[in-house]
């Protein structure tokens, strides 16, 4: 049975806490104030039961500290959602937990949509993709947002394994890498993915006397504030759309791309060339790999497209530009994939569309 003095202390602490709850935004109070007060009361009773009045003082101290920090956070959250309402329905680069980063860095906002489709002819989807928008404000500030697309190849449906290994390894290694230089970290992450896939290939060929092996393309992009860092192996691509112009940033490691660069065939001929799928650089095919790096500055209003050749091999750059300039990212991705499928969809189709707004 609780003593009268205990009940009084709990009642007093409860009244004070209810008053302090007024510092939270009205919407938040409506949703959670009653539960928070009831939780606090239960904490008070527990503190008094297990310790004494001193326990209650300690609890009040930590609760007030929690109240001050989270109340500021919730007010910022409310302010941001109002701004979002005013300026359109955009996804903030950071989740609400990363509000601190939103204050420290330029308030860059990103709208991101991504999708991968098996296409019309293949029996499996060997493409993989990933988007990482870190919740942790420090990670976001230090490392930025990551986008990766990989197009796997190899017998025994191993292509899927290769592209999956590529995107997951790049994500893990990049965010664990402490190197300050983003390009070096990204190259290191891709090289690690290459080593892993190559080792699996070696083990596989040893066990089954199978020399075909698996491999994958890999294009990875980091967007940190307004700096875009791209690392690439193979013929998956990244485009930047700036002021109505579309530009391929990455350089394809494919036979036909080299023939176009050498002036032997036109880009149009390359799209129909019988060796258009032949690439000379891929993750997993050799112990060592060269990775191309590109750096760009993006501006408010720019868009990025990362894709596999199942899209850019079938849909012309101008058509992609028109779609992404016309629709929001979610609708753009659907339209891009539908366009590639309408053109026959001979390969798996993958696209990530990112719209940068201030």
């Amino acid at each position: 049975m609780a003593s009268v003095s205990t009940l009084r202390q709990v009642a007093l602490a409860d009244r004070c806490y209810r008053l302090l709850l007024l510092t939270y935004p009205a919407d938040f109070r409506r949703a959670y104030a009653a539960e928070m007060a009831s939780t606090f009361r239960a904490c008070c009773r527990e503190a008094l039961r297990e310790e004494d009045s001193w326990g209650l003082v300690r609890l009040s101290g930590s609760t007030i500290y929690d109240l001050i920090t989270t109340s500021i956070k919730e007010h910022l959250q409310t302010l941001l959602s109002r701004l979002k309402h005013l300026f359109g329905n955009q996804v903030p680069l950071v989740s609400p937990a990363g509000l601190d980063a939103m204050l420290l860095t330029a308030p860059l906002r990103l709208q991101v949509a991504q999708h991968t489709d098996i296409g019309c002819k293949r029996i499996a989807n060997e493409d993989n993709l990933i988007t990482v928008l870190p919740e942790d404000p420090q990670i976001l500030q230090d490392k930025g947002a990551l986008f990766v697309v990989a197009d796997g190849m190899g017998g025994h449906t191993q292509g899927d394994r290769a592209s999956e290994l590529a995107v997951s390894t790049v994500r893990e290694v990049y965010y664990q890498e402490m190197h300050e230089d983003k390009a070096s970290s990204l190259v290191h992450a891709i090289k690690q993915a290459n080593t892993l896939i190559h080792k699996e290939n070696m083990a596989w060929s040893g066990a089954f006397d199978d020399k075909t092996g698996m491999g994958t393309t890999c294009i990875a992009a980091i967007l940190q504030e307004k700096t875009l860092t791209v690392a690439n192996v193979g013929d998956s691509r990244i485009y930047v759309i700036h002021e109505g112009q579309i530009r391929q940033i990455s350089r394809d490691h494919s036979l036909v791309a080299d023939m176009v660069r050498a002036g032997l065939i036109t880009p149009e001929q390359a799209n129909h060339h019988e060796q258009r799928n032949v690439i000379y650089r891929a993750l997993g095919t050799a112990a060592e790999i060269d990775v191309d790096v590109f750096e760009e500055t993006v501006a408010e209003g720019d868009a990025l497209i990362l894709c596999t050749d199942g899209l850019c091999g079938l849909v012309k750059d101008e058509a992609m530009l028109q779609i992404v300039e016309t629709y929001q990212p979610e609708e753009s991705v659907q339209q891009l994939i539908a366009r590639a499928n309408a053109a026959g969809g001979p390969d798996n189709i993958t696209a990530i569309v990112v719209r940068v707004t201030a």
Partner: protein
Amino acid sequence: MKEKAQAPEAMLPLTPAVFHILLALADGEKHGYGIMKEVSQRTEGSMRMGPGTLYGSIGRMLTSGLIATTDERPDPAVDDERRRYYRLTDFGLRVAEAESRRLDQLLRIAQSKHVLAPSQGGF
């Protein structure tokens, strides 16, 4: 066809509060105070969440579909007040798995670098 727009990995890394709440709900639904107690007990008091941190995280986790509310009922073990209960969604479970894998990999690296002895890992 693969749809990865809702890939659990896209939510990573999680904040400590969010990950602890997911773990607290992994073995069944709980109310807010129940979550708070479980986290404090499991971490032997090293992770104590105040009501503001708890309900701020809960609000965001409801919005992103990691958890859902079930019903409102009293918990006789605490008092006779009616409390809202929260449960893990399938997506929340997949996100918790993905975060665990990520941390496991980090731990292995720490062990391979002899920063942490394998026996200290607790696995």
